[in-house]
C-alpha cells in the first residue's frame, strides 16, 4: 500500500468529519430558528385578533413599557421576515453541505477500496 493513498484517505476522513459537525450545528441552529418562528407566529396571530385599542406592553429588562399596538405588530412582522430569511439561508447551506458529505463519502469509499485492493496483492 502506498503512504500517499493513506494520507489522502486520512485527509478525506478529516474533511468529512468537519463537514458532518458543521451540519450538526447548522441543524441545531435551524431547529432554534424554527421554534423562534413558531413563537413569533403565535404572537403575530394574537396581535391580529386583538382590538386596536388593546394595551400592549413590551418587556424591556424588568419593566413593562406601554407600546403602540401597530408598532408592536410591525415589529413582530419584521422579525418573522428576518427569521424566515435566516431559515432559508440555513436550509441552503445544509443542502450544500449534505451534497458535499455524500461526495466525500463516495471518495473515501473509493480510496478504501483501492487500499484494500493493494493490501490483497
Amino acid at each position, binding site marked *: 500500500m502506498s503512504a500517499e493513498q493513506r494520507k489522502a484517505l486520512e485527509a478525506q476522513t478529516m474533511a468529512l468529519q468537519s463537514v458532518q459537525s458543521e451540519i450538526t450545528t447548522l441543524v441545531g441552529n435551524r431547529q432554534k430558528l424554527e421554534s423562534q418562528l413558531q413563537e413569533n407566529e*403565535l404572537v403575530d396571530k394574537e396581535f391580529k385578533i*386583538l382590538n386596536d385599542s388593546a394595551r400592549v*406592553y413590551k*418587556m424591556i429588562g424588568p419593566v413593562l413599557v406601554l407600546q403602540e399596538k401597530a408598532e408592536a405588530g410591525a415589529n413582530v412582522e419584521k422579525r418573522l421576515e428576518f427569521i424566515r430569511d435566516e431559515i432559508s439561508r440555513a436550509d441552503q447551506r445544509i443542502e450544500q453541505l449534505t451534497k458535499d458529505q*455524500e461526495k466525500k463519502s463516495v471518495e473515501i469509499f473509493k480510496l478504501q477500496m483501492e487500499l484494500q485492493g493493494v493490501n490483497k496483492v
Partner: protein
Amino acid sequence: MSSASTAAANANNGKNQTINLEDLPLTQLQKIKAQLEEELNGLTGAFSQMKQAQAAFRECKGCIDALTPESLDKTIMIPLTNSLYVPGKLSNIENVVVDVGTGYYVEKSKDDAISYYDAKIEYVQNNAKTIQDTVEQKQASYRGLLEIMQYKLTQQQQQQKQQQGAGKQAATGSRA
C-alpha cells in the same frame, strides 16, 4: 466484501426512500436503530415539555379564577424578587396582563384571558397528540427493525457455520 458492495448500492439509491430494510447490511441497520432511538428520545422529551406547558397554562387559568369580587381590596404580598415582598392592595380584578410571548404582554379582560389560555391549552394538547402519534409510529418501526436485525443475525450465524464447514473442505480459493 458483500457488505461493502451493498453499501455502495445503497449510496446510489440514497434518494430512494423505499429501500427494503431486509436488503441492508447489519451495520447499516445498527445505524438506523441508533437514529430511531435518538428520535424517540427527542420526541418523548418534547411530549413531556408539552405536558409541562399545559400545566403552566392551567395554573394561570386557576390564578385568574382566584380574582373574585370578594378578593377586591384585599392585601396581598407582591414579590419584587424571589425573596423580597412588599404589601399591596388588589385594586383591579377586571383586567390582567398576559404574556403572549417574545417579550410582549397584552392587557386583557378576565374572560378574554381565560379564553386565551383555553386556546393555548388546546393548541398544546393538539401538539402533544401529534407527538404521541409519531412516537407510536416510530415505536412500531423500531420494533420491526429489531425483528429484522434479529433475523439477519441468526442468518449470518448460520452462514458463518456453513462457511466454516466449507472452508475445511476447500482451504484455498474462497477469498477471491
